[in-house]
């Protein structure tokens, strides 16, 4: 374990030294996966999708990402007209969902190139070339990595988050039109501390049969995540932040987290602040989820409550998650589960992965492409009954992807028609 950590630390150091050298990526080192970028404007694509989508139903972006919140951080390496993003397909259902994402990106002519790395032995940590690639591109699309129970080292999921200090995990559960959810109008943003707490990995056994596990809470990181949650709330016009804790029992640790949240809340008087004990939060979440807006969570509670939230919103296969920090951003499924039971059968739901791609596009300020793909995904749910088995349907991953691409093509065709109409109008005008 020690050795593994050393390797990871070394590769991180090596990578950091490369950070300020731009343009070292070579074309040969990556697989070219997408079509060439297009310059066609898509600003009105949303209006062309399906009128039904605009009338009467809410359309919310998966995270309502306002690029400005994020782009204080370095963006991806440019490559010609496109951007390079590191792709880690992961294990279990990861690779099939990623294939689906790549197909959708290709169909939508997104100017992104994926630098793909299949990590053959996740137990051995991050290979140096992956670390280099991430430091270069600073953007990652990631599939889930499974952590076996007997495995004593740090899982790749945690290495990535901690190693690159992607401290904020953001999951937005929102009502997807056409998806049957347990509650209506569930619209909650979960902001989770991603680097410390119970995930410190510090455990020891002093005597046989007695194990101690350390939970680390620091003022710096608690303040940082609280700051992020409030800034997010402010930028996205949200009204309330709820800090979740167990400070009645963990008086010092969760107490510190709560204190930091209160301190930050005082700086944002225009945003309502409340705190809630974690078990009460779970109960209220299933009874009356509409009372929540932005929920600020320490690491483990975020894991648990985020999972409840996605289940309430219609399913764990639907929602994407972003991991953000000064080192860059990583996008993945909100519930990081490898789903090995259904892996390789072609029945995984790729929605979460495709929408994670949409989050990536918003992060890169490619709003038109983001809207374009997101609307197509929503259209599949609202206008067709193509559903993967997790939502009670029979469609395969491929069939679902094909349905999304059909809508993309349809929207594209509509747009071209409109362009022609405009041309004609121009002619008449002149």
């Amino acid at each position, binding site marked *: 374990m020690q050795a593994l950590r050393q390797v990871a630390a070394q590769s991180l150091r090596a990578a950091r030294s490369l950070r300020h050298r731009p343009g070292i990526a070579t074309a040969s080192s990556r697989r070219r996966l997408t079509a060439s970028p297009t310059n066609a404007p898509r600003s009105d694509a949303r209006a062309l999708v399906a009128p039904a989508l605009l009338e009467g139903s809410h359309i919310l972006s998966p995270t309502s990402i306002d690029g400005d919140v994020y782009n204080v951080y370095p963006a991806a390496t440019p490559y010609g007209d496109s951007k390079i993003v590191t792709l880690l397909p992961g294990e279990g259902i990861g690779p099939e969902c990623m294939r689906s994402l790549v197909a959708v990106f290709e169909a939508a002519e997104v100017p992104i190139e994926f630098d793909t790395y299949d990590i053959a032995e996740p137990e051995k940590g991050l290979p140096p070339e992956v670390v280099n690639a991430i430091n270069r591109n600073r953007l990652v699309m990631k599939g889930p990595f499974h*952590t076996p*129970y007997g*495995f*004593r080292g740090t*899982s790749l999921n945690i290495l990535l988050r901690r190693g690159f200090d992607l401290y904020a995990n953001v999951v937005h559960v929102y009502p997807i039109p056409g998806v049957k959810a*347990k*509650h209506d109008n569930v619209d909650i943003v979960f902001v989770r501390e991603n680097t410390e707490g*119970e*995930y410190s*990995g510090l*455990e*020891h*056994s002093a005597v*046989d*049969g*007695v*194990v*101690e*596990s*350390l*939970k*680390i*809470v*620091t*003022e*710096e990181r608690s303040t940082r995540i609280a700051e992020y949650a409030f800034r997010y709330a402010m930028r996205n016009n949200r009204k309330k932040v709820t800090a979740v804790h*167990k400070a*009645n*029992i*963990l*008086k*010092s*640790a*969760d*107490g*510190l987290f709560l204190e930091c949240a209160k301190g930050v809340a005082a700086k944002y008087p225009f945003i309502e602040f409340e705190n809630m004990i*974690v*078990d*009460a939060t*779970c*109960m*209220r*979440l*299933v*009874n009356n989820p509409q009372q929540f807006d932005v929920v600020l969570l320490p690491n*483990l*509670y975020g*894991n*648990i*409550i*985020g*999972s*409840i939230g*996605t*289940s*309430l919103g219609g*399913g*764990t296969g639907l929602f994407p998650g972003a991991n953000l920090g000064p080192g860059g951003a990583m996008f993945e499924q909100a*519930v990081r*589960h490898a789903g090995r039971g259904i892996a390789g059968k072609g029945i995984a739901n790729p929605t979460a992965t495709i929408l994670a791609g949409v989050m990536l596009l918003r992060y890169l300020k490619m709003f038109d492409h983001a809207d374009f793909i997101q609307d197509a995904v929503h259209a599949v749910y609202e206008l067709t009954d193509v559903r993967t088995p997790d939502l009670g349907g029979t469609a395969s991953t491929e069939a679902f992807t094909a349905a999304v691409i059909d809508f993309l093509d349809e929207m594209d065709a509509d747009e071209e028609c409109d362009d022609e109409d405009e041309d004609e109008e121009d002619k008449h005008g002149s």
Partner: protein
Amino acid sequence: MSLWIAPLLIAARHSRPAGRHVAPHFLTRRLSAAAPSAQAVRTVTLFPGDGIGPEIAGAVKEIFRAADAPVQWEEIAISTKNVKPGEDLIPQAALDSVRRNRYGLKGPLETPVGKGHKSLNLTLRQALSLYANVRPCVSMPGVKTKFDNINVVTIRENTEGEYVGLEHEVYPGVVESLKVITRQASERVARFAFEYARSNQRKRVTAVHKASVLKMSDGMFLECCRRISKEYPDIEFKEALIELCCGYLVSQPQRYDVLVLTNLAGDIVSDLAAGLIGGLGLTASLNKGEHVVLAEAVHGTAPDIAGKDWANPTALLLSGVMLLREMDLHDHAERIERAVHQVLQDAQCRTRDLGGTARCSEYTQAIIDRLGTA
């Protein structure tokens, strides 16, 4: 000697259901002192508690009496409202009563605000060495929630984990909090879970953990559960990661039957499960100790409606039903539980928290009326 004669005399006086008459005999009574026969009267310590406690405890007593449950109450009015810092939250005499009777039923107690107190639950747990908390969460017939067919029992380790209270600031702004897991406590709660599953005709025990991250602590808990499961081949054993368990409780609760959990995880999941069936006002709870059993209502004292006869006694009543089962009074338990279910099903007589207009006393009477037919 007078100790075990007293209940006998009471038993002879009343509360013996007709048709199941078994004359208590000095000798049998004495020999079976550890496991009294089905008709012997048990003395149970009752803490009515604060706020709505006395009303709902009154309702429970009435219903038990009407159901001919062979239970004699040793009522001790304790209140934690006005305890001064440094004083014992629960008087020694009250604890001794539970220890002596081995069975207790507790209404809601207000946790005093301010520092200097150990939490009330912690005090009780330690004083009575209550190592497991059991909460059956079963969808109540007729009570409409967004979630149907919930039927899970959460069994939570109650003595260690995150609740050991070991925390310190290693450096300004850096706090460490210790979670302690021991093999002994893990095996004890796992064994209890399997025993519970067996004696309550349940099919499956799922160990809920986060061993993917807490490799050693939750890892050991999981190992203990696995090892104990081998001793119970008649009960199916499964494992689940806590976040997936929570997600599935919301979307596919039928996956689970009995859940066995570490302390904080148990706290979270049991409240989640209670939320799924409509809140703590309907949730029964029982704490199992090495020598005693303490059933309790886990909801609050609701001071705003205290004394107004609006409270819902269901949680305390069903906790009492769990207690009856622990005392092997399964017939009485069944009768009362069926009566409660029927009243809820009919929806004619419901308390305010369930959207009805009935008073506590009316609801109690409705249950008593059903006892005859149930």
